[in-house]
C-alpha cells in the first residue's frame, strides 16, 4: 500500500460506509492527516481499499480496531511544560480563589497522560479533593489504557524532563512503580476521574466545566468541525471558565472566538467572557 493507491474516491467510500454503518463521521476530519492514518491502518494489516470495505461489511467488531488505528494516540506527560507551569502558578490557584470545587473536562484524552499530569499537579497543589475530572475519547480501547495508567518505561525519561520543567515539586517516579518494561501509576491519582466514551463529532453537552483541556485534538479536524466543537466547548463552560488548546491551534476562525479572551497567547489558554 503506497499513498498513490488510496484514491479520494476510495477514501470517500470508506468514510461513507463507516458513517452509515457505525455512526462515526470522519468526513470533516482534516483530509491530509486522516488520509495518512487510513493508509497506515491498511499498511499495518496489509489491506487494500476493497479489503477494508469488506471488513467493515463482514466484521462489525473491526471498527474498534480501526478507530484505534486512525486516531492519533501519541502523547507525553506534561507535554509543553510551559502550559503546566502556567496552570500550576496562575490558573489553578486563581480557580481555587474563586470556587469551593471545580470541574475539568479532558476532551480527546487518548491514553490519559494529560489526565494523569493534571491529577499529579492537583495533588501537589493540594486541590485534588476539590475537583471532578471527566476524561473522554471516541476510542474505548484507548480509554481502558488510560484507566490502567500504565505506560512504557522508556517514555519516563521524557516525562520526567517535562515534569521538572513544569515545576514539579516532588519526583515523578514517586507516583509510579516499575513493572518490567512498564511503569504503573498510583490508581488513587485517578479516583476523581470519570472516563467515558464521547465522540466530539456527534457533539452534545453532558455537563458544565470550569476548565476544558483539549490539546492537539482540533488539529485533526477541518475548520468546519473545529468551529462546531469549539462552539460545544463554549456551551459546556461555566461563565469565566477556561479552555486550553494545543500550542499551534487557533480559535481565530471559530464563530464564538469573540466570546473568549486570550488569557495566555503562548500557551493558548482562553477564558469564556460572554455567553
Amino acid at each position, binding site marked *: 500500500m503506497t499513498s498513490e493507491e488510496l484514491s479520494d474516491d476510495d477514501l470517500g467510500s470508506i468514510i461513507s460506509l463507516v458513517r452509515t454503518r457505525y455512526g462515526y463521521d470522519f468526513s470533516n476530519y482534516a483530509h*491530509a*492527516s486522516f488520509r495518512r*492514518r487510513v493508509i497506515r491502518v491498511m499498511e499495518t494489516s496489509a489491506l487494500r481499499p476493497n479489503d477494508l470495505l469488506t471488513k467493515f461489511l463482514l466484521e462489525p467488531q473491526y471498527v474498534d480496531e480501526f478507530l484505534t488505528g486512525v486516531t492519533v494516540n501519541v502523547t507525553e506527560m506534561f507535554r509543553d511544560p510551559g502550559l503546566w507551569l502556567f496552570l500550576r502558578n496562575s490558573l489553578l490557584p486563581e480557580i481555587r480563589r474563586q470556587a469551593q470545587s471545580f470541574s475539568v473536562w479532558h476532551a480527546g484524552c487518548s491514553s490519559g497522560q494529560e489526565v494523569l499530569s493534571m491529577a499529579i499537579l492537583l495533588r501537589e497543589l493540594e486541590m485534588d479533593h476539590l475537583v471532578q475530572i471527566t476524561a473522554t475519547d471516541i476510542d474505548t480501547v484507548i480509554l481502558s489504557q488510560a484507566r490502567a495508567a500504565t505506560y512504557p518505561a522508556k517514555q519516563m525519561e521524557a516525562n520526567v524532563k517535562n515534569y521538572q520543567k513544569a515545576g514539579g515539586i516532588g519526583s515523578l517516579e514517586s507516583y509510579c512503580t516499575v513493572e518490567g518494561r512498564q511503569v504503573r501509576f498510583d490508581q488513587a491519582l485517578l479516583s476523581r476521574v470519570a472516563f467515558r466514551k464521547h465522540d466530539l463529532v456527534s457533539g452534545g453537552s453532558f455537563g458544565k466545566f470550569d476548565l476544558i483541556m483539549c490539546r*492537539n485534538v482540533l488539529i*485533526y479536524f477541518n475548520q468546519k468541525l473545529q468551529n462546531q466543537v469549539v462552539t460545544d466547548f463554549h456551551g459546556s463552560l461555566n461563565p469565566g471558565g477556561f479552555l486550553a488548546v*494545543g*500550542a499551534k*491551534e*487557533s480559535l481565530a476562525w471559530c464563530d464564538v472566538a469573540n466570546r473568549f479572551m486570550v488569557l495566555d497567547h503562548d500557551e493558548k489558554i482562553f477564558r469564556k467572557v460572554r455567553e
Partner: protein
Amino acid sequence: MSKAPQEHPPAIVLIAGSAGSFQAVCSLLSSLPGQLPVAVVVCIHRLKDVRHGFAESVMSRSGRQAAEPVDKEVVRSGRIYLAPANYHLYIDTGRTFSLSTEEAVNHSRPSIDLLFQSAARVYGHSMTAILLSGANQDGAIGVKAVAAVGGTVYIQDPHECEVGTMPRAAAALLGSEYVMRLAAIQAALNRTLGKRP
C-alpha cells in the same frame, strides 16, 4: 541531462533539510527576491523541546521575515513559513496548513516526506521542492512524489553538504539529474521566480 529544472512557475517553494542545512536555508532565503511571488515553507529537523528562538535565528541570519503557521492557516504568497518543532506539517485541502502529532516518520517530526507528499497532492506541478544537507533518509520519498506530479525538484550536491546522507538517499531514489550545487539551485530558483509577471 537537465531533466530536473522544468521551470514551471511555482505557487509554493518547499525547502527542507536536517543536519548541516541551517546555513544553506538562510543563504537560500536571503537570495530570494524581496517581493516574493510565492509562498515559501521551510522544514528543518530540530530539537523538539526548543519552541522559541528558531524563527528569530532564521530571521536574523537571512534578513527575512518568517513565522510558524498555526493549524488550518491559509498558505499565502509572499510569506515564509517555518515548520513548528514536534509536529508534522501537512499542506491540506484548500491550500491550508494542517498539523499532526502522529509518531515520527524516519525518526523525524516534522517529516519532510509527509510535507512533500501532501503538498504534491494539493499543488501538483505548481511547486518546487528543495532538499538540502541531512543525516537520514527523510525526504527521498517526498521528492519522488513531487517529481511524479511534475513539480520541480532540486537536491543539493551531497559533495558540498556538511552531511550528505539525505541528498544521497534522495538522488539514489529519484536520479542524479536532480542534483545541483547550492549556487545553481539559487540561480535556477530565482530564474523561475523572476519569470512571473
